[in-house]
């Protein structure tokens, strides 16, 4: 059920590589855990991120969670739609609910991420 063309982190972010750039969002599992999302705190365009550094926060009726960058890079675009309609993350987490677009600094870091099948296996282990 998780798209084959994305890479995944243990903290439930996804990364879609498009040439030298990549799009980042949170996974369907993450949005389900969070519940109805009411606010997304987006970074400034131009922000330089290291892998695992906080991109921003996602706030739901239940909690506030940090979103971590799966790889190092520079923020070149943010999904400003999310300021008005944060529930796009609930409705379409792997598509319209994307959070930022990065210029990737070091493509080798992608090797540290999980493929869809591995992520699904990882989720099975998490089921409480």
């Amino acid at each position: 059920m998780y798209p084959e063309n994305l890479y995944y982190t243990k903290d439930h972010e996804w990364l879609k590589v498009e040439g030298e750039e990549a799009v980042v969002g949170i996974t369907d599992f993450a949005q389900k855990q969070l519940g109805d999302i009411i606010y997304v705190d987006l970074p400034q365009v131009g922000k330089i991120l290291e892998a695992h550094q906080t991109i921003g926060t996602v706030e739901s009726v239940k909690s506030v969670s940090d979103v971590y960058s799966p790889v190092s890079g520079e923020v070149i675009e943010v999904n400003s739609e999310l300021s008005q309609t944060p529930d796009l993350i609930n409705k379409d987490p792997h598509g319209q609910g994307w959070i930022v677009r990065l210029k990737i600094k070091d493509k080798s870091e992608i090797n540290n991420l999980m493929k869809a099948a591995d992520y699904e296996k990882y989720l099975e282990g998490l089921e409480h």
Partner: protein
Amino acid sequence: MINVIREPLIFEISSPGKTAVKLPELDVPEKKDLLNGVPVRNDIEGFPEVSETEITRHFTRLSQMNYCVDFGFYPLGSCTMKYNPKVNEKVASMSCFTSSHPLAPEKLVQGNLELMKTLEKLLCEITGMDAVTLQPAAGAHGELTGMMLIRAYHTAHGNPRKYVLIPDSAHGTNPSSAHICGYTVKEIKSSEKGTISVEDLARVMDEEVAALMVTNPNTLGVFESDICQIADIVHAKGGFLYMDGANMNALAGITRPGDMKVDVLHLNLHKTFSTPHGGGGPGSGPVAVKKILEPYLPVPVIEEKDGQYYLNYDRPQSIGRVKSFYGQFLVMLKALAYILALGPKGIREMAEVAVLNSNYIRKSLEGIYHLKYDTPTLHECVFSDKYQKDYGVSNLDIAKRLLDYGLHPPTMSFPLIVHGALMIEPTETESRRDLDLFIEAMKAIDREAKENPELLKSAPHLTYVRRLDEVQAARNPILRWEKKE
């Protein structure tokens, strides 16, 4: 509770010219120029005009829609909503206290200063610490003050340091307090037992870590039994051990943070020491420290010289004031009344009964509701909705259904390490009968989850308002009344 038909806002029942008080006719010459030059408030447009009957009934009806500790059980885990003894209120409302002015000369308020000093000493004795400031006005304010003391110490010793370590089972305010104090927070993951992993801590602890903030017992209700070893690891690298003392009602009279090598902790008078909480506040979050941090305490500090109490502002290393005047004086009185009424044995019994009550609930609901960690717990226990999830029922549905049983729901969805958490803290003030009412309601809700899940998903059914749209309320909050044209 009385079912009230929709109660309008007071603005909506207003009719022009109505008043609650009728003043006698003016029988002296009118003086119009008396207020010349004095700023006079303009009439507030749309200010409600109602009769005394209307005011009384309006607010009485609103009060009947409310839920409070005087009405029933309030099992909000980690928030310790215990009963507030009426004698505390009686003491705090004595006119000798309510009439004393905060700027009165010290010699006229010796009694007040003595009471504050007495409370400080009692809190030192209960916590095993060396000195206390009563200034902070809430738990999180206490946390911030505690972190400022740590920062002041490190700064005075050449390096404020960069990081504060916080376990994922800590109170949610801890990371925020550390962050506001200028530190970067590093989270430590809990072990399978729900406690801090000593190995993990040893790995991340270094000379750039200013402090470890521990909630003990933690938000799972689990006592950090390695606390002394944890303290040694932190101290070996020159860091401080901060303890969030919000859960002190599990320990008071039994063991003391000071003996666990804790350097700083805050207490919540509005929790452990029975003063009102939430809307009934204000809160009070005294901070207790070991000698090493005493020079940095906020000013003024109450001191005694030749049998006279005075406020000492001459403390060059102090972090300064953290609150106007001296903190919430009347709240301190309530806590003092509580401590003196209980006495040493009573304080211990308070903690024992808090732990007993929590374990009574835990044992009664075990197997019916899922317990992620089977480690023994103290004053609170954290169940999850895992079993009920099979019927499509979430912790939110369970919480909403509890309202139909006339009970306040427990803390939900926290701590984050338990998915679908229901965090239950009965406190020591609940009788066996009240605990049983809660347990029976929780069992009935579990049966309903299996037999008629829709009943839970659409709950509450018997309250004044039905299920509220939390998403709408968070995204588009209407915070004040506005006149419709």
